[in-house]
């Protein structure tokens, strides 16, 4: 969520308020369902960060396993994010041909294909 608020120290106090107001607006405006998707996204991101840190700090020896694990989190993340954007009612105008049900079906197929490749690459 918070990406680069460490650098703008030269800014005025306004950087704080965009973040805070962003958080407030977010909690107010998003539906429960989207929040649920977002928790899954956060979990995936955390898992990916852990794997990446392990790879960088400890060893990257079974590089294919690292790539498989990391790619599974990243891939799942983007698929879920896509699902989120497709399900979000605000985006209905963009997705004329994809109903929310179809969106979920696409998400499921994509995830299954992703996991198939991940497990093939893992070992």
């Amino acid at each position, binding site marked *: 969520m918070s990406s680069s608020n460490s650098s703008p120290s030269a800014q005025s106090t306004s950087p704080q308020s965009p973040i805070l107001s962003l958080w407030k607006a977010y909690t107010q405006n998003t539906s429960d369902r989207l929040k649920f998707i977002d928790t899954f996204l956060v979990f995936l991101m955390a*898992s990916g960060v852990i*794997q990446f840190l*392990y790879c960088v700090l400890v060893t990257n*020896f*079974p590089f294919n396993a690292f790539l498989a694990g*990391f790619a599974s989190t990243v891939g799942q993340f983007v698929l879920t994010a896509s699902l989120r954007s497709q399900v979000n009612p605000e985006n209905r105008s963009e997705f004329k041909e994809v109903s929310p049900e179809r969106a979920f079906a696409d998400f499921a197929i994509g995830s299954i294909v992703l996991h198939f490749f991940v497990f093939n690459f*893992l070992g």
Partner: protein
Amino acid sequence: MWSFYTFILLIFGFVSVLDAKSSSGNSVLVILDPARQPDYSIFFNGLKEKGYDLTFRAPKDEAPVLIEDDIPSFAHVILFAPDSKHFGKDVTPQALVQLLSSQTNLLIALGQKQNLVTSLAPEFSLILPPPGSSLVSYFPERKEPPTVVPIDVPSSSKILSSSSSPVWFSGVPFALGNNPLVFPILSAPAEGFAADSEGSTADALFDAADKGGEGLWAGSQLAVAAGFQALGGARATWVGGVELFSDEFAKKEISKGVKSGNQQAAADLAAWTFQESLVLRIDSTTHHLVGTSVPKEHYTTNDVVEYVAQISRFNPSKDKWEPYSGLDDLQLEFTMLDPHIRTALPPVPGSPGKYAVTFRVPDRHGVFKFVVDYKRKGWTHLQSSTTVPVVPPRHDGYPRFLSAAWPYYAGAISTSLGFFLFSAIYLAGDPREGNLRGLRAKSTKAQ
């Protein structure tokens, strides 16, 4: 009845076994002037006793031919014609070399005259002294002329049996070139030198001293008998003078009561040349993974492989091949363009004739060869090359699941689990959402 016949056969076999035979055939062609034949009767009779079939031919004769239809007619050829100028049409230097390529052994005597033999000698990397010169030595003091020289047989010689009597020699010494296939059997004495017979010895010495000793035809660097092992296995022996084999020298005494060693030396030279002594062969070679006994079609990198060679030596007195474990410097090379592994191939104690070594195949894939290449002067050359591919491990030869990768396994599995949980809960929440939307739509429609 049957037992009687076997008895007869046994007698014959027994009789033939008593004689020392060559490992490569019995037929010998002797090319020499027929008038001189009786002079070498001791030598030739000795050969006949051993079981060789001798065929005599004058140099000018056309028959029997050396090579007929590209097949050599004899197993061995003795060329005792150093004074002949003209030979039959089929006796040419090229033909003699072709004989060697067909596994025919040659025993050739040189002389002072220039003829076919002296023009063939340089091909064998022998450097002959100027024409007309012969070996001259004034030591040890003796009543024979200086051109008749007694030569001691070195005790380290493998070919000449080290009897204590020196050998009478009269003829041409020669120097040996750089070819590794030629080696001296009997070197000239250290006090000997090559000079024109009688009279100009002093001049020769003076000239040589003048040049500072360069190009001097003297000393033990010259040989009077040299052996040459051709790459195909055939042997050729060059002797500087044919008198070494003569009866006269065989009977001449070195000193009171001590017989000369000529007869023995002549027999030894013939034995070596005709593939009786110092003859080895590789019976078989195998290779296999340690732990198995069947050779594999290809090996994987880092396999542990055992290579076994079986080597025999020909025993002339028994006329058969016996396993021989006396080679202590045999080497094995595991080569792909360059030897990647070079190790000793020691004999296995307890198994006569068996040489084995175990080693690890290098970590490099490719087409390798097991190469045994044993060349020692006097012994038969042993060469063996077995080609075997070395392949990298199969895709399932690597360890599949590594313990170092557990966070990744955990991550991947947790992602899949999370996905399933998420979809389950999402779909479970679906009708509620759908109903909600349906309600909302209905309400908006109604309005």
